[in-house]
């Protein structure tokens, strides 16, 4: 059956007249539907078809933000015209996007004699999905066999010991524990009468999970039962019939990792341009000559599109729109550090099939001693929708209380949301663009994107080589990066010695997390320009009181170090910390 007839067949399930066109394996959809959810479902139905390499979903739904997109486009065009003639420099590779993917590729490229620039539109790296995930380094059991995800996840996971050591990033292989309970195969209960249900759940299903993992190349998977489970997780539900234990699962602090990748890339010669937004491309025929931004044009021999949720828009601007991103929001709840020890592994309850809204979520410890619940998985039309609705908080609390019935759920100290960047084919898309010669797509990097990041970078650089980029190793590449020392973690002797050299080590600004002035100053020296950038690098304001005490003191330090009045200090991006008048100044 041809791709066309398969697509036609898939579209028959929907009560709409959907037009489509297939070009080089990419399906373009057009038409109108009632709801956004249907827009997603149609895209997914087409994306599932074997042989489809991308789905560009141009279907409109009721409430499609036409006016808003028009305004956005006008603004972009204006910036393009204003800046296209101002040349900033000439680069071998320009990377678009400063998330974990972009910074990992930048660092990988910094091993070679190349001039590389990374462009990020925000005031810091890591501000998209990279800052708002649960920090889990997945073992690679979950992805479908044969996908790029499966391959890069397993490889990426294995690379983390060395990478984390080199970059001075905390990384712990805590292992994951997937519980099998009476709810695991609930959907199949009616086919499995009486004792069969428990038998299949406890004695057959775990082996299928193990087999799936083994086929993906994951090692060390064990199946445990009874006391074996509670020895690992003493407070987990006594309902568990069995558990799949995967020792290679790990955790790290995702924004610590991204900051470290960026710092190390810079140390090895990469330029990172913040507050630099791509607004178009200069092309000659099928070749990109320059990347136009709000600051001017970066001439480029190769361009890497690692723009996360915006990757489809960048692809469109570049002239090779081969996929549409359908943003998928994940909400996470964060619990007080005082609960450290309550949960020691990445724990979740297996459900087959997975319930729509909590796919992949669970309970994770963090490297700092907090505990996270979540994330959820909700399709949202707005790529920047990081709102958390009260109902979503309750939903998570309900969902996971079953596996930790006695958990002190009232000790939430924060919640947040990130937006994943899946395409409709749901696998990573890392390949040369089909209709532009020197553009590499690194798109659709959703979970397990963090776990795969080192392998994605390696794979992307291989792709660039196959596209003709010459990779000549740099003998003076330095893989090491020193972390910002933490007053809270060093020995008293070391702290005393540091204070004697620089008294700012003894000025404790954040009392919950014990962050000193010296750490804040060091974060600023390493490139932090906003309060949130400092928070992510030092853990200032990340504790029990959530910055109630230290925010103003940190703002004062930022103001002093950056040489701007305190009223101009920024929280993140365009958001000034204070918006009111200053005494003695004109309003």
């Amino acid at each position, binding site marked *: 059956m041809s791709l066309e007839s398969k697509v036609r067949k898939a579209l028959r399930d929907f009560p709409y007249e959907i037009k489509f066109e297939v070009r080089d394996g990419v399906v373009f959809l057009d038409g109108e539907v009632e709801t956004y959810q249907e827009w997603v479902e149609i895209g997914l139905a087409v994306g599932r078809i074997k042989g489809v390499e991308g789905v560009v979903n141009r279907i409109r739904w009721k409430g499609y933000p036409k006016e808003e997109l028009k305004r956005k486009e006008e603004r972009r065009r204006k910036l393009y015209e204003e800046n296209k003639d101002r040349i900033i420099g000439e680069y071998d590779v320009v990377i678009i996007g400063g998330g974990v993917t972009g910074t990992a590729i930048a660092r990988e490229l910094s091993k070679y004699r190349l001039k590389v620039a990374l462009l990020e539109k925000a005031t810091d790296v890591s501000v998209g999905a990279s800052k708002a995930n649960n920090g889990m380094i997945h073992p690679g059991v979950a992805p479908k066999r044969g996908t790029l995800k499966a391959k890069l996840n397993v490889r990426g996971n294995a690379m983390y010991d060395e990478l984390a050591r080199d970059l001075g990033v905390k990384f712990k292989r805590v292992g994951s524990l997937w519980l099998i309970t009476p709810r695991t195969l609930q959907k199949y209960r009616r086919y499995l009468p009486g004792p069969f249900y428990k038998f299949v759940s406890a004695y057959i299903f775990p082996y299928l999970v193990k087999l799936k993992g083994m086929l993906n190349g994951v090692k060390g998977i064990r199946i445990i039962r009874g006391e074996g489970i509670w020895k690992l997780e003493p407070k987990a539900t006594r309902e568990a019939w069995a558990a799949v234990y995967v020792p290679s699962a790990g955790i790290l602090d995702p924004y610590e990792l991204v900051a470290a990748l960026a710092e190390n890339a810079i140390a090895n010669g990469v330029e990172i341009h913040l507050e630099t937004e791509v607004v178009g491309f200069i092309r000659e025929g099928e070749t990109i000559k320059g990347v136009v931004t709000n600051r001017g044009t970066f001439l480029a021999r190769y361009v890497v599109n690692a723009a996360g949720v915006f990757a489809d828009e960048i692809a469109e601007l570049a002239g090779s729109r081969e996929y549409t991103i359908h943003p998928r929001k994940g909400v996470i709840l964060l619990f007080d550090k*005082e609960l450290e020890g309550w949960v020691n592994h990445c724990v979740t309850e297996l459900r087959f099939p997975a319930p729509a809204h909590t796919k992949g979520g669970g309970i994770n410890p963090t490297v700092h001693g907090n505990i996270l619940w979540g994330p959820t998985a909700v399709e949202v039309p707005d790529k*920047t929708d*990081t*709102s*958390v*609705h*009260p109902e*979503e*908080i309750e939903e998570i609390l309900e969902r996971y209380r079953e596996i930790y019935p006695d958990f002190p759920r009232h000790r*939430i*100290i*924060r*919640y*947040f949301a990130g937006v994943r960047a899946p395409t409709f084919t749901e696998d990573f898309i890392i390949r040369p663009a089909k209709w532009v010669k020197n553009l590499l797509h690194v798109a659709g990097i959703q979970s397990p994107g963090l776990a795969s990041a080192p392998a994605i970078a390696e794979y992307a650089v291989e792709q660039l080589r196959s596209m003709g980029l010459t990779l000549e190793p740099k003998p003076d590449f330095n893989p090491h990066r020193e972390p910002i020392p933490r*007053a809270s973690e060093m020995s*008293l*002797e070391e*702290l*005393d010695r540091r*204070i*004697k050299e620089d*008294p*700012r080590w*003894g*000025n*404790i600004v954040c*009392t*919950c997390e*014990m962050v*000193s002035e010296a750490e804040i100053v060091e974060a600023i020296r390493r490139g932090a320009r906003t309060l949130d950038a400092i928070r992510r690098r030092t853990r200032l304001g990340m504790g*029990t*009181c*959530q*910055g*109630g*005490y230290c*925010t*103003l003191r940190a703002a004062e330090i930022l103001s002093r170090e950056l040489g701007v009045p*305190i*009223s101009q200090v*920024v*929280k*993140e*991006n*365009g*958001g*000034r*910390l*204070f*918006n*009111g*008048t*200053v*005494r*003695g100044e004109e*309003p």
Partner: protein
Amino acid sequence: MAAAVKLAGKGYDVALIERKEELGGILDQCIHDGFGTKIFGKALSGPEFAGHFMDEASKLGLDVHLNTYVKSVNAGGDVKELVTVSPRGVERIKARSIVYAIGCRERHPFEIKVGGTRPAGIYTAGMVQRLVNLYGILPGKRVLIVGGGDVGMIVARHLYLEGVESITVVFPEEFFVGLPRNVQQCILDFNIPFRPRTVVKEIVGKERVEGVILVKVDENWRPIPSTEEFYPCDTVIFSVGLVPYAKKLRAIGAEIDPRTRGPVVNEFFESTVRGVFAAGNLVQIFDYVDDAVESAYIAADGVEKYLAGEGRLDNPVPFKPGSNVRTLTPHRLEWEDERPVVAFLRPAVEGRAWIIVRGGNGEILKKEFRQYVRPSTLERIEIPREAIDGAEEVYIDVAGV
């Protein structure tokens, strides 16, 4: 400061450790009046009130360590050791007894599950007070204040006088819960708009607050469906309660009362770790600074007894909150002493009431009439020792009239 001054006055060798650059805690940002009505019989401003104790401290020549953070405390033995961190270095301080007076923290929006986004423009009331009074900067132009307690009202008046463009106060209760004088002087006198039975459901805005979604609530504070309303503003200030900053005490093994969220204490404000005392808002939230000072004086008396090795009761007498009592201190009677026991309790009801002290079998030990009690005002009652003599446990009830 009050505990240190009192102990130094008794002739003890006292070190006073403060994390900030100067003494006085948050009193420096409280430029409104109303402090000291009980102790000095006049309404001082926060800095004036703090100034009194600062003068005393300097007269007595206290050993004051400013800018000093206490990293860890070994409170187990007879000699306690503190490890401090300051710009002077890491130091160890040995003491026979410790009084913790580290106050409280403000509850933040995540603790009341406010939804929406997390942009710039969200503050706690204390942060705003500090910003305006010490830095001379207004947080924003169009302000929504969440919370009908004293701090919220005081900040509302302040921002009104400083000239913000608009201001509204919302709270879930039927009416303001702070002191009546504040309702009159801060809200009614300036016609500041307020909306009772209203809470913030979600915050809207990507980089800066653009507004909030307000929702009406019923008498159980449950949101009423379809009463959501968008309220445009660029600033949301949360004044939704104070919580004793008890994590440092928990870290040394002191027992914490889930009701007050402060340490469990005996009648001399001694925690469950012997020789470690607690005073002020760390124990429970005092509505009057004067009461907080009294708790420090009592703790200082306790330190004196502890250092003198005075006798403890063979069988401590538990104090338990009875009917219509939300919180109660002390939690037990533990020392042999002559002085009356000072108890503080937070009523769960409003109106004319009797405060009744009774034994475990219901026998009434003491009764006091109050013209007007309410949940937002901490009640103080003195109980003579003779009244409790022989009781195995003590309950305190509030009975409406």
